[in-house]
C-alpha cells in the first residue's frame, strides 16, 4: 500500500513539476521579484519553483456557499499572482481540502495536508479552528481564518484579516449614536448565538454600554432557532432603543420582521455575517430597511475599485459559483499572504519561522481598500479597528449601500481585545 501510494505521489509530483516548469517557461520574461532558488531559506511547502498554501474549506457542509466563494477568491488571487510572475521567483499553488464543517474530519485531514504546505490561506469554521489550535502552534503554520472573533487571537499563528466582531459592534453603535439614533443611558437589546461568534459580538456591546452608561438586554439563542418573535417581544417589553444582532441571516430576517410587525421599529445593527443578499427575496424583505451592517470588508457590490474588479473577474471565471462577499474576502486573505510572502522573500527566509517574523514586522498592509490597513505588530490585537457601515437598500446592487466607509470610533481605539498584550 505504501509503495503504491509513493508511486502515485511520485507520479503526481512529476506531473506537477512538469506543469510548473511549463508555466515558468511562459512567464519567465516578466518575473520581477527575482532571486529564484538562490539564497532563500526554505522548509515545508516551498520548493525552488513553487510555494504551496493550504485551504481547509467547507464545500459540502452548512457553509458551502461561503466556502466556495472564499476558495474562488483564493484561486483568482493565485491566477493573478502567477500571471504576474509569481512571488520570489516561484509560482503559487493551492492545496484544497474539504472538511464539511466537521472538526473530526478536519482533525484527520490536517496531518495529511500539513507536510505539503507553507501556511493556510483559508480556514473555515470556528469549531475546526478550535480543534486545530494546538496543531497549528506545534507545527508553526501561519493561518488566515475565515472567522473574525478576537477570542482566537491568543493563537500566535492566526493572521486576522480585517477587524473582529466585537469591534464591528463598537464602531456600529458609535455610528448609531453619532446619527442620534441612540443616546447615553438607553437600553439596547442584543440577540446573539451562543458560541465564539455571538460571544465575541456581545463583548463589543457590553464594552460600548459600559462607556455610555447603557444597559444591555441580552438574549441568547442557538444557531438553529428560527423564530425570534418571543425574544423581540421581550426586548420590546424591556424598552430597548436599538437591537444588536450577532445571528445567522435567517434569524436576522425573523428579528427584522418582528421588529416591524410588533411596531417596535428601532434601528438594528448587525455583524457582517448577519446579512445575505438572498434576504431581499425573502418575505422579510420589506422590513429590512432599519438594518445597519458593520463589516470589516467591503460588501460584494462595493464601489471600491478593487472590489468591483474582483467581483467582475469572479463572475466571469466562476459563473456557477455562489455570489457573495466571500469572493472578496477570499481574495483579500490571499493578498495579505502576498504581502507576508514578499516581505519574507526580501528577508531571504521563506521558512515557516521566517514567515512569522515577516508578519510581525508588517505595520501597514494595504489591500487596495478591500479592508482597512492592517498592523500585525501587536500580539493579540486585531490588526485594524475600522469598519464599513452599510444600510440595507432595496435599490442598491447587492442590497447594501455604504453609509460610512472605513469608520473607526474613538471608543474602538481605546478597546482592549481579550488577548491583547499591550
Amino acid at each position: 500500500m505504501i509503495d503504491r501510494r509513493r508511486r502515485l505521489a511520485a507520479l503526481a509530483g512529476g506531473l506537477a513539476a512538469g506543469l510548473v516548469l511549463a508555466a515558468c517557461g511562459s512567464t519567465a520574461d516578466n518575473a520581477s521579484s527575482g532571486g529564484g532558488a538562490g539564497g532563500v531559506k526554505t522548509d515545508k511547502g516551498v520548493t525552488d519553483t513553487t510555494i504551496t498554501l493550504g485551504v481547509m474549506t467547507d464545500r459540502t457542509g452548512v457553509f458551502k456557499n461561503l466556502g466556495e466563494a472564499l476558495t474562488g477568491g483564493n484561486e483568482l488571487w493565485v491566477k493573478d499572482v502567477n500571471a504576474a510572475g509569481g512571488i520570489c521567483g516561484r509560482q503559487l499553488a493551492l492545496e484544497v481540502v474539504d472538511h464539511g464543517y466537521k472538526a473530526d474530519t478536519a482533525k484527520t485531514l490536517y496531518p495529511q495536508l500539513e507536510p505539503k504546505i507553507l501556511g493556510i490561506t483559508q480556514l473555515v469554521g470556528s469549531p475546526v479552528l478550535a480543534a486545530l489550535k494546538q496543531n497549528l502552534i506545534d507545527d508553526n503554520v501561519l493561518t488566515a481564518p475565515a472567522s473574525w472573533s478576537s477570542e482566537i487571537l491568543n493563537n500566535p499563528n492566526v493572521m486576522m484579516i480585517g477587524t473582529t466582531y466585537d469591534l464591528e459592534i463598537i464602531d456600529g453603535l458609535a455610528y448609531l449614536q453619532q446619527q442620534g439614533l441612540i443616546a447615553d443611558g438607553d437600553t439596547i437589546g442584543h440577540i446573539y448565538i451562543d458560541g465564539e461568534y455571538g460571544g465575541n459580538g456581545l463583548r463589543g456591546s457590553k464594552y460600548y454600554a459600559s462607556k455610555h452608561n447603557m444597559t444591555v438586554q441580552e438574549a441568547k439563542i442557538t444557531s438553529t432557532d428560527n423564530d425570534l418573535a418571543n425574544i423581540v417581544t421581550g426586548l420590546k417589553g424591556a424598552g430597548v432603543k436599538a437591537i444588536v444582532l450577532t445571528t445567522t441571516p435567517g434569524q436576522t430576517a425573523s428579528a427584522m420582521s418582528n421588529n416591524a410587525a410588533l411596531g417596535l421599529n428601532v434601528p438594528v445593527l448587525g455583524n457582517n455575517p448577519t446579512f445575505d443578499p438572498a434576504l431581499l427575496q425573502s418575505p422579510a424583505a420589506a422590513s429590512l430597511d432599519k438594518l445597519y451592517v458593520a463589516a470589516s470588508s467591503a460588501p460584494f457590490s462595493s464601489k471600491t475599485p478593487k472590489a468591483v474588479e474582483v467581483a467582475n473577474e469572479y463572475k466571469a471565471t466562476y459563473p456557477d459559483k455562489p455570489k457573495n462577499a466571500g469572493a472578496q474576502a477570499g481574495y483579500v486573505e490571499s493578498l495579505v499572504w502576498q504581502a507576508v510572502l514578499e516581505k519574507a522573500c526580501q528577508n531571504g527566509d521563506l521558512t515557516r519561522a521566517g514567515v512569522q517574523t515577516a508578519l510581525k514586522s508588517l505595520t501597514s498592509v494595504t489591500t487596495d481598500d478591500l479592508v482597512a490597513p492592517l498592523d500585525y505588530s501587536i500580539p493579540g490585537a486585531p490588526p485594524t479597528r475600522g469598519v464599513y457601515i452599510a444600510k440595507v437598500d432595496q435599490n442598491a446592487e447587492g442590497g447594501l449601500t455604504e453609509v460610512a466607509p472605513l469608520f473607526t470610533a474613538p471608543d474602538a481605539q481605546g478597546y482592549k481585545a481579550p488577548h491583547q498584550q499591550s
Partner: protein
Amino acid sequence: MSEVTVTPPETEAPPTPAPRRPRNWLKIAGVTLFLVLLVLFPVFTGTDVAYLKAGQYVLIGVVGAVGLTMLVGQAGQLSLATPFFLLVGAVSYAVLAGDSGDSGDLVGLGLPPVVAAVGAVVICGLVGLAFAPVSGRLRGIYLGVASLSLVFLGLYLGQSLDMLSGGTSTGRPPPTFAIFDFRFANTEPAPTILGVAVQKQQRLWYLFLVLAIGAYLLARGAVRSRIGRAWRAVRDNEAAATAMGVHVTRVKAGAFTISSAYAGLAGVMTALWLDLVKPDENEFVGTYSITVAIGYLAMVIIGGLGSIPGAVAGAVLVNGLPQLLTLGATEFGWFADARFGGPSPVLISAFVYGVAVVLVVMFEPGGLAAIGRRLAHVRAARPTRGGDRG
C-alpha cells in the same frame, strides 16, 4: 426500530457449561495475526499520521459502541444518550486533570491524568446510575426518547457551566495524558519501533488500542458471565427473570451504569483525540450532537444488537469509512469533479451506513455478527452453537 430492540438476535450463553471444545487453531492464528497488525499499524503508516488519526477515531467508536451494544442488545434498553456521556467524560477529565486556565476562570483540580481519566469514567457511571429511576421505568422507544433528552441537557449545561466546559466560544484544552513520567506528547528523543519514531500520535494509538482491547475483553467477560445472563433474562421477560431470582431494577440500573462508564471512557478518548473540550453550539452538528447518537446506534444495529465483535465492526464502518473516504478524496482525487452540492465523503458514508441499517433490519437482524457466524459455520461445515458469540 423498537421491533429490533424487542426481538434481538440469538446471543444466549450455552445453557450448561459445554464440554471443552477442541482448540480452533485457525481462529487463534487469525486473532494473533490481527493483533500483530494492529500493533504494527503505526509502522505501516510511518510519517503519514493522518491514517493513524483515522484509526484512533475508530478505536473511540469501538469503546463507545461496545458499551452501547451491552445496554441496547444485551439488556434491551434503547439509549440515545451516548453523546451526553461522551461530553460528561470529556469535561470531567479536563476538570479533574486541568488547571484554572490563563485567566483563572476555569475549575481545574490538577490531579494526575490517570487518576482524572479513571475519575471521569467513574463520574459517568454515577451519572448513568442517577438516570436509573428513569431507565428502570421506561422501555423501548419511550426510553430512547427520554435518554435523548440527556443530549439536550448536555447542550444546555455545556453552554451554561462554562467554568467547567470552557464555554462554546473557546472550550478548554484537555491536559496532556501521562502515565507517571511518560507523556503522550512529542518528545526529543523519541523511542522508535522498526525505525518509526513513536511520537504523540503513535503513543495515543497504543493507548487507545490498550483501552479498546481492555473494554472489549471486559465486555465479553460480562456478557458470558452471570451478569450477562441476568441482562438477557431481563430483556426477554422481566416476570420470568424475577421468578428466577433476578433483581430487575438493580440489573437495569447496573447495565445503564456500565454502558455510561464505557461512553465516558470514549469521551476521555475524544478529548485527547481532538486536543479540545468544547461544548457544541447546537444540537444537530458537533462532537456531542444527535448525529453522533444516531451514529452509535447505527454501529450497534449494523454490527448486530448485543454482539461485541459486531459492535467493533459497526464502529469501523460508521467511524472509519467517512475518515478513509475523506483522506482518499484528497490523496487520489476522488469526488474531485462533483464538488459543489455533489456527493462528498461524509454524504456517501452516511448513505452507506443508512443502507446498511435498512438491509440489516430487513434481511439479517443479527447484523454483521450473524453473517460472520454463518460464514464460520459454512467453513466448519458443522454448527458450533454459540461458538463465535460475543
